[in-house]
């Protein structure tokens, strides 16, 4: 009798909890759709061909767009990726494959600390590193600031997913005579690539929308910014400048810029996933 009661209890708990997880997922997804929908609605209204091809115009003049900001964001993000992703990846490999206990703990802890630094403080730091010594703002300085912010998430996810690769795979490779580094490159990393790339994309997505670190490093630019040594416009800074201005036209452009930013991240995500799926990332299920 008792065992039947207990079974009923376990069964109903099962149903309740599983439903709750569904509810939670539903709640999050609907908020997400609300946000995306709001952005698409407000931003889509102001998107036109000019937005992608023209430079910003002063207020009161229609037309004008954010072509330089779009290119600027792309340049800054590629710099951030080039500087931050390798550091994160290799550090994650160290923590998962080579690290000693104490040192790894310190590195992990430090990465978490770095993650918690407000973006404006990172901007101030990058300013003292990359702007003050040369006395001018530059794309490079912006890349440095964003690059620093990319590191923590990349490190964490790289380490996490490398660890998740079953020992049997490593042992199999070693039994075939592969050295440790060979194993890592040819077996472990590919196996963990799904999670690692998720982490990388997540970190890039996060810095794509950051404004504060760019204010003192990349500054911004009304015009095109050739090379890597001049101030450069970027979508988040334009959004920030336009959103707090008094003009309706600029507000609409701010929403449009937000939408474009999201679309850029979406395309990058899609691109990476396609490349990945072709390589066949390994998952347990």
């Amino acid at each position: 009798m008792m065992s039947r009661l207990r079974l009923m209890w376990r069964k109903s708990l099962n149903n309740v909890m599983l439903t709750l997880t569904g509810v939670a997922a539903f709640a999050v997804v609907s908020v997400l759709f609300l946000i995306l929908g709001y952005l698409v609605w407000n931003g889509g209204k102001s998107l036109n061909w000019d937005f992608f091809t023209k430079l910003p115009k002063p207020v009161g003049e229609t037309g004008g767009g954010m072509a330089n900001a779009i290119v600027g964001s792309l340049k800054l993000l590629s710099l951030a990726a080039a500087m931050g992703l390798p550091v994160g990846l290799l550090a994650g490999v160290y923590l998962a494959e080579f690290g000693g206990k104490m040192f790894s703990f310190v590195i992990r802890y430090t990465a978490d600390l770095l993650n918690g630094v407000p973006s404006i403080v990172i901007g101030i730091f990058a300013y003292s590193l990359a702007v003050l010594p040369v006395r001018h703002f530059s794309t490079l300085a912006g890349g440095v600031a964003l690059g620093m912010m990319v590191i923590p998430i990349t490190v964490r996810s790289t380490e996490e997913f490398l660890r998740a690769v079953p020992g049997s795979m490593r042992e199999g490779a070693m039994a075939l005579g592969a050295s440790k580094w060979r194993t890592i490159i040819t077996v472990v990393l590919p196996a963990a690539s799904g999670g690692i790339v998720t982490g990388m994309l997540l970190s890039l997505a996060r810095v794509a929308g950051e404004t504060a670190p760019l204010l003192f490093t990349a500054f911004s630019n009304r015009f095109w910014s050739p090379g890597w040594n001049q101030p450069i416009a970027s979508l988040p800074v334009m959004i920030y400048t336009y959103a707090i201005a008094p003009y309706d036209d600029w507000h609409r452009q701010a929403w449009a810029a937000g939408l474009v930013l999201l679309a850029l991240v979406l395309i990058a995500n899609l691109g990476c996933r396609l490349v990945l799926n072709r390589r066949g990332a390994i998952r347990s299920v």
Partner: protein
Amino acid sequence: MKKTLLIVSIVLALGATATAQSNGTLLLNAAGATFPYPIYSKWFDVYHNLHPNMQINYQSIGSGGGIRQLLAGTVDFGASDGPMTDEQLSQAKFKILHFPTVLGAVVPTYEIPGVTGELNFTQKALAGIYMGQIKKWNDPEIAKPNPGVPLPGDDIVVVHRSDGSGTSYIWTDFLSKASDGWKSKVGMGTSVNWPVGLGGKGNEGVSGLVKQTPGSIGYIELIYAVQNKIPYGKVQNAAGKFVKADLAGVTAAAAAAAKEIPDDFRVSITNASGPTSYPISSFTWLLIPAMISDVAKRDAIKDFLKWMLTEGQNYNEGLSYSRLPKPVQAKEMKAIALIQ
């Protein structure tokens, strides 16, 4: 891995070569006040069309930011809603000149259930509200100049700027002149220790909060109120008249102060004399180094200033900024010669 490296190197190469700068383009970087950003961006754009080889890149990172970048030498000139203090000027390695460019005003905006018209505010009322001493809308200090208006007994919700701003500077400058208590307890600046109230970020934040919060009062820039059709109240000036802020009233305030304007143009024109002067008005300044070693840049800046003082002023009113009064314009023209 190889693919990524390839992509990265392509992007780097593209970035370096794309949109190559044409020879002879002169780029000037400037930073500072947010308040005049719209008119500055208009000016620099028009000027660029007149002189296509000149690019002036102005970014509104805030008056304080502008001053700091100027002192650090990372920009060619700065802009500020409040004049630099003696202390700041002494920190500079070089002499800095102030040039007023446009005039602006700060207006009180409110959202009171049941009240639709324009309220008259005495100086004591505004100071008392922002000090937290006047707590309810039907306080006699507010009711006295507004006979017949059905002011409710609701609590006043005070809204101020959370971010450091020239607008706050002008507002607190005015309150310091309106009330000795304010001056001694709070003082004036871009950021102060507000006795009461919620902080909204930017004009947008303040007006948003006010609109949504019944019984609230806040202060915003005139152009913001005009562009977004936000109703605002009248303020009593030094002559005792209740003035609603408009472009003419602001220029009148500047004209009244123009007689005593010092040679370095660092002056506060809040609470100016004169029956039509709007009491919460202010100049905003460009901060130009007195010695510029790069000849091309120096000539460009001087030329721009001359243009700004003559042609440029014609664009002010279109964007709801007030023109500089003629005597001030003339005085500035002479001061341009000081740039070497």
